[in-house]
């Protein structure tokens, strides 16, 4: 994970994690050129898998230009044109995290350009939904784009960062829902477990926010412990934390766990 230290890989392996699944995302600042993305895609597809492998951790990734950098249409087009050069790399599972940030017209056009690439190369799709007051509107706009493209199979799409007001919208489409765990603000482990109890455990997974903000790479194992305290069975915990992500990701022939 480009935003984390090697210690985090060590902690994840110690806690029983077997693979890391890293989306292309914002660098914390706007990259100035497509060359910057070329280097970033090399880092995601070549360097990070080696760094993770040192700890016995499989590394998979997703490629795109993040919605936060999608207002500049020229840059977005140049970056999207780079994706086919990397798409056959061994750890690339698909296109992501695409989506919306402020729900603007240009962000929507760039989302559609990414969906086009995913359809053309038959890739899985990982979608970022906007945060806070923008999430509801953004989720609806994103679902409309994906539903209107008949080439996109809903079971091959995961809509990430769902919360209580968007989870049902997502699950009703047949797409997968991702709950991203944050130590402060947004979804906590307790709320994620509430959503599992209310909306069921099919087509849903949890992931740890591991970005530039305060985040906890071990949020998923910690949530598993909290599920145990709440009386959930080992089988159900295993389904949500382990089997479900495998079920989704193995739709890509590149997803393999050796352990």
């Amino acid at each position, binding site marked *: 994970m480009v935003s984390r230290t090697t210690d985090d890989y060590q902690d994840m392996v110690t806690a029983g994690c077997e693979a890391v699944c890293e989306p292309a995302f914002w660098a914390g600042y706007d990259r100035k050129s497509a060359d910057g993305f070329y280097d970033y895609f090399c880092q995601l597809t070549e360097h990070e898998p080696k760094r993770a492998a040192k700890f016995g951790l499989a590394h998979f990734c997703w490629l795109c230009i993040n919605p936060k950098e999608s*207002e500049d249409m020229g840059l977005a087009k140049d970056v999207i044109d780079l994706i086919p050069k990397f798409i056959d790399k061994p750890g690339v599972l698909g296109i992501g995290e695409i989506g919306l940030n402020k729900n603007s*017209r240009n962000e929507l056009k760039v989302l559609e350009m990414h969906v086009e690439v995913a359809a053309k190369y038959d890739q899985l799709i990982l979608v970022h939904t906007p945060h806070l007051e*923008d999430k*509801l509107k953004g989720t609806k706009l994103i679902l409309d784009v994906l539903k209107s493209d008949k080439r996109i199979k809903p079971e091959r799409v995961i809509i990430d960062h769902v919360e*209580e007001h968007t989870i049902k919208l997502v699950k009703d489409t047949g797409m997968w829902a991702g709950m991203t765990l944050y130590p402060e603000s947004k979804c906590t482990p307790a709320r994620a477990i509430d959503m599992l109890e209310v909306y069921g455990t099919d087509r849903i997974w949890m992931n740890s926010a591991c970005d530039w903000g305060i985040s906890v790479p071990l949020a998923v194992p910690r949530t598993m412990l909290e599920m145990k305290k709440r009386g959930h069975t080992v089988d159900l915990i295993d389904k949500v934390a382990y089997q479900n992500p495998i079920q989704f990701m193995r739709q890509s022939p590149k997803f393999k766990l050796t352990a």
Partner: protein
Amino acid sequence: MNRQQVLDMYFMEARAKLIDIAAFLDRVDRAPGEADFRLAAFRQALKELDGGTPERAKNVLLSFSDPSVEPLEKASVKGAIGAFAGNVKD
């Protein structure tokens, strides 16, 4: 878990968060100057806690959400601030 067990597991944490909210509102009251729409949005969202159905978290989130459907002409800022001015009732 039954209700007793839920209380055993989460009451102290929820109590602490509730006192934090009370202290936050006191802090805002003591501070000089005018508040922006976020304070009214916050007070409005608090009313959702009195709802009689177990959908309070969803309703609080909806109360802070932009309900419009048309895309924004241009994204002039990157971040979100947590509340939508248009939702605040006078």
